[in-house]
């Protein structure tokens, strides 16, 4: 296959000025070029993009993906290395380049299309299609300052997409116009893809990459981490991101927790002296309510391998560990242990307790641990809240109750919609349709 874009150990350095002196006077007077720090926006990156492929460039903010795109688009030049690009490049990076508010839609189409290097006749031939695609037939001869921002974007997008480019550069996913128009745009991109246009898109939304691309390149801090099948890259990327979040959370809670633990120790000692007079207050687990006869002192999520985690793959088995402590003699309690799972907006997805499951006679100790195991977690990707409670068996009141003791994330390669994955299969005329869904990694 023909290589359309060849990036050869490209580096791009930026100067980060702390206070960039713009004026000649300042330069002369201070005799300096200003205080700056150099950093690599892109460092020694190489890759090749083949004709007709749709490639996704992924990475977090500041990973250098947009800089890369700008260099391919030739608005920036690399400091080291080479970039070879074959054929006409169109970009959906800047829509409506050079639009003038006082000119009519038609004149602006004309100006905008000329930026791509077309001749007059070529533009003339395209104009009817562009206008039809933009759905602005009735307004095309009005000055575009009278347009709404949606109309403006539609016009701009229509021009950009009718440039018969060999390579199309797309930055982030297109939030143009209403849902119908977006679908139309997506269709048009599919069509161009079918016609052999090479597409390079930049995004941090992994699901787009998986849906649209046949190859992915992952950049982090200016360097290429890996490249390959979108699915493969997606797993790596998500695992990496989850790990990062984990780190941040741990360092945050550790700080809080260390502080409280020392308070807790003091309290326990105090309680030993004057029984019942002082009760332990737990604040580090978030908002809770209850009469305090029993309290939860700590909480942990662990995955099937026993590691402390807050993100899980659909299908994974997870265990919630809750540590409790009774503030009255445990024989006096009629414990009823419950669990709740909420979605991000706080809608209850599932809840149950031991009493409802028929166990009304659970014995607790003074201090102990309750494990709640969720086998084969069939939640779809998203953020969830976990709640836990010990109430009395009649559910008249709680000893301690959390609606949100911990949040967790679920990710997977599933594109299903809803909350829960229901086991299913499609059978068409007797043949089972194979699903790309992978359970546990």
């Amino acid at each position: 296959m023909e290589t359309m874009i060849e990036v050869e150990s490209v580096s791009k350095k930026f100067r980060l000025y702390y206070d960039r002196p713009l004026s000649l006077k300042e330069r002369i007077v201070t005799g300096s070029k200003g205080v700056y720090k150099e950093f690599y926006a892109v460092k020694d990156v190489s890759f090749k993009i083949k004709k007709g492929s749709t490639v996704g460039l992924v990475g977090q903010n500041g990973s250098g993906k947009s800089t890369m795109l700008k260099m391919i688009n030739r608005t920036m030049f690399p400091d080291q290395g080479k970039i070879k690009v074959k054929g006409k490049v169109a970009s959906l990076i800047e829509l409506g380049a050079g639009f003038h508010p006082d000119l009519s839609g038609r004149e602006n189409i004309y100006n905008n299309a000329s930026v791509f290097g077309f001749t007059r006749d070529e533009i003339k031939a395209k104009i009817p299609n562009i206008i039809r695609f933009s759905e602005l037939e009735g307004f095309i001869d009005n000055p575009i300052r009278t347009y709404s921002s949606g109309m403006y974007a539609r016009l701009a997008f229509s021009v950009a997409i009718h440039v018969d480019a060999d390579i199309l550069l797309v930055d982030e996913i297109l939030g143009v116009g209403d849902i119908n128009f977006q679908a139309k745009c997506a269709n048009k991109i599919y069509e161009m893809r079918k016609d052999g246009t090479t597409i390079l898109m930049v995004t941090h939304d992994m699901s787009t990459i998986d849906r649209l691309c046949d190859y992915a390149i992952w950049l982090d801090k200016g360097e290429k981490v890996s490249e390959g099948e979108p699915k493969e890259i997606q797993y790596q990327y998500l695992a990496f991101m989850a790990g990062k979040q984990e780190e941040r959370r741990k360092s945050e809670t550790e700080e809080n927790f260390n502080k409280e633990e020392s308070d807790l120790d003091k309290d326990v000692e105090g309680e030993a002296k004057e029984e019942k007079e002082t009760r332990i207050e737990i604040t580090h687990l978030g908002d809770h309510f209850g009469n305090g006869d029993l309290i939860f002192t700590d909480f942990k999520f662990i995955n099937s391998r026993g590691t402390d985690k807050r993100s899980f793959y659909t299908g994974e088995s997870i265990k919630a560990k809750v540590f409790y402590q009774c503030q009255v003699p445990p024989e006096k309690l009629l414990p009823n242990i419950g669990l709740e799972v909420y979605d991000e907006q706080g809608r209850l997805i599932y809840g149950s307790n031991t009493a409802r499951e028929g166990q009304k006679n659970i014995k607790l100790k003074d201090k102990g641990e309750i494990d709640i195991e969720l086998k084969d977690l069939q939640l779809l990707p998203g953020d969830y809240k976990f709640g836990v409670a010990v109430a009395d068996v009649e559910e008249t009141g709680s000893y301690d109750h959390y609606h949100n003791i911990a949040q967790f994330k679920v990710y997977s390669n599933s594109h299903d919609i809803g909350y829960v994955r229901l086991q299913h299969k499609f059978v068409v005329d007797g043949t089972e349709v194979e699903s790309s869904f992978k359970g546990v990694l």
Partner: protein
Amino acid sequence: MIEMIDRAKEIIQFQEMIKSWTRKELRTRYKGSFLGFLWTFVNPLLQLVVYSLIFPFIMKFNQENYAMFMFVALIPWNFFTASLQGASGIIVWNSSMVTKVYFPREILPISYTLSGLCNMIFSYMIVFPMLFVFRVSFTWNLLWLPVLFFIQTILCLGLTFIVCSINVYFRDLENLISVGVLALYFLSPVMYDITAIPSKLQKIMFLNPMTGLLVMYRDVTFKGVALDIKMLFISLVYACVICFVGWKIFIKLQKKFTEIL
């Protein structure tokens, strides 16, 4: 040099963009005003009215037909100042395009200069009937005008290249230029004839690339005499050198436009 040829080829490929941007420049200049495009003609006409009222009555010059004398030089001078003053901002104002879309950057200065040329030609259309009104005789020497237009365009393009690219790096240039232009105005034979200057000083004045052109514009239109071929040739070479150097500077500086803007 090879780079320049490649760039030139690419610029030719983008000729449609040059055309449409020149048109846009011209059309949007007076957009929204009541007279619109007519201003291109009305503006110089009103200027001429002002001069022909002020000079004969308020300031007395020996020069016969002073308003016309000045006007034929003032129009090219306006084009010249535009290529210095107005040009300083063309890259900066179009920064959203420059940073995000690829096209040969030269298109912006080229179309700006061409729109200036068009404006000058339109203004000169006022000159012809006025020459008649002021009873200045027409001669065949007027046919030199296109040649002068051509040379001045090359000169202005070169200056535009330099000014617009340097201004991206030093925004102070804009302000320096407006002062410089005012000084140059008095040092150029716009308000007076070159012969009014001592011949020693004349040599220094010819360092200004516009001096020769202004003298020739006045020769062929107002005075109706043939122009000095040697002066024409020198002006042409001078303009070409400035344009070449200007383009070189532009090519060098344009690589970092996106980062700086």
